[in-house]
């Protein structure tokens, strides 16, 4: 299926654009309102679902069907749920930008608090553009140990035990971040990085029978530091976020199988960025209105 067909054509009807702008306005109003965090998350989810239902795209049912092989009705349901997830993530990004995680901390918990409490660094944690990615940090704050996060740009104000190493810029800047991460692991801390994405050194893996590009950074760190790689995921469950550690992975293919299992288990946790990356690899396209989750 062509990219144009998946999107339902290149030209956006006037009524659809007007609807999108209206929903954008509502979402911004919710984000800047004084509503409590759980209430605003619920409101954002309702707006996102309504928007997806009315617009029938971002993501389109056809995109979901092409990716998961689901029948039309199930694809539509998943698309609407992804619409709600995207709206919750947009709210999170808007509220977190330049602020602390504190208002969201009470929403986030570990699936198995005892196992995670026993987790000791050094460990390389890897995640993906999946679920409540931006709130994972609130769960990681509960772990015993400091962490370095490799990311393109900072979002929230890091907590006392969190440091950011920027992966923006050229390969030298990213090499600096990787060297810093090696040092951090040697000092006995956690390092968190994303598996999927379009930046930096990567390797092609298969997810849902499609090529995806995983960064090579985590695997380089494991090789030089002899430290295990643990996948970790943050899932939206209504207005709450549940985080869970996966089993250790030894390489990119194994990590891809972990991500595929997570996606098959709950396709509605796929962010639009991940859906688009899998459909239109290798470019991770910006989402609507130039808004990027990154």
């Amino acid at each position: 299926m062509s990219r144009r067909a998946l999107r339902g054509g290149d030209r956006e009807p006037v009524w659809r654009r007007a609807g999108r702008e209206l929903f954008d306005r509502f979402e911004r109003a919710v984000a800047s309102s004084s509503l409590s965090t759980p209430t605003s998350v619920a409101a954002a989810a309702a707006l996102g679902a309504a928007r997806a239902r009315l617009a029938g795209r971002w993501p389109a049912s056809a995109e979901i069907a092409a990716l998961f092989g689901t029948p039309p009705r199930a694809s539509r349901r998943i698309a609407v749920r992804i619409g709600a997830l995207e709206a919750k993530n947009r709210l999170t990004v808007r509220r977190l930008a330049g602020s602390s995680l504190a208002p969201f901390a009470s929403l986030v918990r570990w699936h198995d608090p005892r196992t995670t409490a026993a987790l000791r660094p050094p460990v390389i944690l890897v995640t993906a553009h999946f679920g409540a990615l931006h709130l994972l940090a609130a769960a990681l704050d509960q772990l015993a140990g400091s962490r370095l996060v490799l990311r393109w740009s900072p979002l929230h104000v890091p907590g006392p035990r969190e440091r950011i190493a920027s992966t923006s810029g050229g390969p030298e800047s990213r090499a600096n971040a990787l060297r810093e991460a090696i040092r951090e692991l040697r000092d006995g801390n956690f390092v968190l990085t994303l598996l999927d994405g379009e930046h930096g050194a990567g390797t092609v893996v298969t997810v849902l029978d499609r090529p995806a590009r995983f960064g090579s950074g985590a695997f380089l760190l494991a090789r030089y530091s002899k430290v295990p790689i643990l996948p970790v995921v943050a899932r939206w469950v209504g207005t709450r976020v549940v985080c869970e550690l996966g089993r250790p992975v030894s390489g990119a293919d194994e990590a891809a199988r972990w991500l595929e299992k997570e996606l098959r288990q709950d396709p509605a946790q796929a962010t639009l960025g991940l859906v688009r990356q899998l459909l239109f690899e290798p470019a991770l396209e910006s989402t609507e209105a130039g808004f990027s989750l990154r």
Partner: protein
Amino acid sequence: MSEVCATPPTRPDLPIGRIHDLVRIHAPSYWRSRPVFDHTRLDDSGIGFDSVGLVELLVACESELGVALPVDLRLDDGMTVGQLVELFRRAAAARE
């Protein structure tokens, strides 16, 4: 880091010229048969090292030359082979 000033003294047995060989060995395959000059850039504008390749090159150079780069060293974007050589010259000189 990238400002190359007066060349600091180098340990006479330090095989600095070996860095060019290591650059070629660790370079993407399309570059391996091509010459490497001091002014050649390591990134996409030159040889095409990615971040992982650069870290592997640095580790290989450290191991081969027996010289550890400072832990807080920051590489500047647009680094050349000559600047890489200079880094190791300085690290070797600082060690003595």
